[in-house]
């Protein structure tokens, strides 16, 4: 929990003290996800947590993208479209092109970034609910496109996708072939968490760079930042492309776990969920989407014990959370004056 607080970019004057604490936070976090979590799972025997946490990691990668579009003041309810596109790109490259999964992962992201530039250029001029609604429609367009195209195999989906293969450089095995592993879910967990850590480091770096300041200026007043010479159109498209890259990578990873993809693998509900993860965690905090995903996704799984009241309790909690902490769960850890 502490990592999130520390990594939040307040305007503390003491830079060195801050950066020491940040490094410490990152190290603690890494130790937690790579050490404590596997140890906990081994101790309790709750092996199913691996998949749940893998899901959380991957969904929070996609949610990180949504968060970035929030950061430039746009409500993005279209991330599901890019996750679906990423999944299909990876699948088609693997099954028809024989490309290694590890190579398709960045390619899926790049493909999504590319189409997001084409789509984003016109629609990023929209604001507020208009942008939100267009992106909502985009998810449905992606689903219908996947149904209609021959290369995606339409309604029948693509099944029996091979597990990620091995990677070795000069005889040294860097990544083992997943098909030979005794416990692929643990391997998927490590991969997913690594991707998540990388994505959030990138995100955190962006937010604390010049680019991040420009993005914030966009969020606050677009006309004003344009008038002082910020190339707002370019900045918006850049942020959106990065966001979609994250979505594509998350989608591709998911497909490699389920070893199958259908047009309904990512739907409007997923897009809405990504947005909700950001809200729950807090829009003002880089690590908000990560925490939000953990709470909402994990929460649903744990509430399974509630049987038919599962959805009632889940949504009731969500409403209560909003009433108590309208600025996200992380606002709980805000110190005085640290909020924006």
């Amino acid at each position, binding site marked *: 929990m502490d990592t999130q607080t520390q990594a939040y970019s307040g305007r503390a004057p003491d830079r060195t003290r801050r950066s020491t604490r940040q490094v410490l936070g990152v190290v603690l976090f890494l130790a937690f996800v790579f050490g404590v979590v596997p140890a906990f799972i081994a101790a309790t025997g709750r092996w199913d947590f691996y998949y749940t946490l893998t899901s959380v990691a991957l969904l929070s990668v996609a949610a990180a993208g949504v968060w970035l579009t929030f950061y430039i003041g746009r409500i993005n309810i279209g991330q599901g479209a890019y996750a679906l596109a990423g999944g299909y790109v990876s699948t088609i490259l693997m099954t028809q092109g024989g490309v290694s999964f590890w190579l398709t992962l960045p390619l899926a992201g790049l493909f999504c970034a590319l189409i997001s530039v084409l789509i984003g250029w016109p629609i990023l001029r929209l604001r507020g609910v208009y942008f939100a609604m267009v992106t909502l429609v985009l998810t449905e367009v992606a689903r219908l496109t996947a149904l209609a195209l021959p290369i995606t195999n339409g309604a029948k989906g693509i099944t029996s996708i091979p597990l990620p293969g091995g990677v070795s450089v000069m005889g040294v095995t860097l990544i083992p072939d997943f098909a030979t592993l005794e416990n692929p879910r643990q391997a998927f967990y490590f991969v997913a968490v690594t991707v998540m850590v990388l994505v959030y480091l990138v995100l955190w770096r962006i937010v604390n760079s010049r680019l991040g300041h420009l993005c914030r200026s966009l969020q606050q007043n677009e006309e004003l930042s344009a008038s002082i010479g910020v190339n707002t159109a370019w900045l918006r498209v850049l942020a959106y492309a990065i966001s979609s890259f994250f979505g594509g990578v998350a989608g591709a990873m998911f497909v490699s776990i389920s070893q*199958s993809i259908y047009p309904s693998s990512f739907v409007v509900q997923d897009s809405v969920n990504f947005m909700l993860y950001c809200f729950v965690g807090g829009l003002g905090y880089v690590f908000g989407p990560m925490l939000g995903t953990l709470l909402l996704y994990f929460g649903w799984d*744990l509430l*399974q014990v509630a049987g038919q009241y599962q959805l009632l309790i889940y949504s009731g909690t969500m409403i209560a959370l909003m009433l108590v902490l309208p600025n996200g769960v992380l606002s709980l850890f805000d110190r005085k004056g640290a909020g924006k």
Partner: protein
Amino acid sequence: MLRRHVLKSTALAFAASLVLTPAAHAQNPTLKIGFVGVTSGPAAAWGISNQRSLETRAAWLNELGGVQIGDTTYDIQIVAFDDQKDPKRAIAGMERMAQEGVHYVVGPNVDDGAAAVRPVAEQNGIIYFPYAFPKELYVAPASNAILGMVANYQSGPAIYKYLMDNKGVQKVAFVAANESDPLSQRDSGIEAAKALGLEVVSDKVTYQVDTTDFTPVLLPVLQAQPDLLVLSGVSPANAPQLIRSARELGYEGLISTETAQDASVLAEGAGDLAEGFISVGGASTPELASDTMREFVDRYTKMFGEYNDESNTKVYALEYIIETLKANPAAIDDVEAFKTTIDTFEAPNPFMVGDAKLRYVGQSSFGQKRQIAVPLVVNEYRGGKFETLFVAEVD
């Protein structure tokens, strides 16, 4: 400050208690049977009728003193997981089943979920009974899925053949929702119809599942003047509206579907206009239902307030699991033993009158026995109830 602190600690305590909740221990040995399917959201009807069938039958068996498998008598416990019709959740559900030591799972209800859980099921030694039709789930090398009902590519040809011979049907039209399951079913339906020599006059029209007015959808279909209108993979929610719109537009031919429907839903949604509507059902029509089936319906109604005719096809999965385990007690935690038993297993079918048998089929469709033999009962809707049109068998 104090409020913050209280909030923080309650949140942490809540999270901790959820993570560490120990599984409830029953006193008698329990046999856990899983259910992974959709019980909330738009498609809730499918999973709920499924889960309730399982729970009704389990409660009944437990009331009778449990089930004797080998030398041990077990109480049946149903472990249910709501996948929200999301394939990603379905995987989590299957992982959960593995965690709980469940080896036999009923569900998922849709194609994408059934395909997504396959790796988990095969890695963890779980046999699952999907209500999804894609053949690659059941054809080798896949081996852990057993189709829980009659697939439309099996029932479709039987229905079309019957209608060709008895009602002189020559021209057939298909409509389907623009989703994976219905579209796949439409395509295999078209194939079957063409193979029988029927003329397919309209096969392109699709609709969104949330359509509130089907008149524009059906207009071009009916202009092609079919004798038979097939509603491929239609959900119980859409069926009455489609029937009603077709009839109101003056369509006088036959309407059929290959999925299970509910008579009271048809009565409310389409009333007399649904007369003669042909669908596939289980064995609860008065001509076929045994006393056990009637008692099942009574118990279901008592437990949940209202029966759902879709459960007629969903009553079987649990019976098959238990009977097969009885036949080979070693299978209780070894699905390989289950698989070998599949080939020879046979037991009386308690839900049907006569000498119908429970056995595994699918040899001709899948090349291996990966389907439960549910009688293919084709129903006709008459006066608010289903009547048996004909009964066929799948091999």
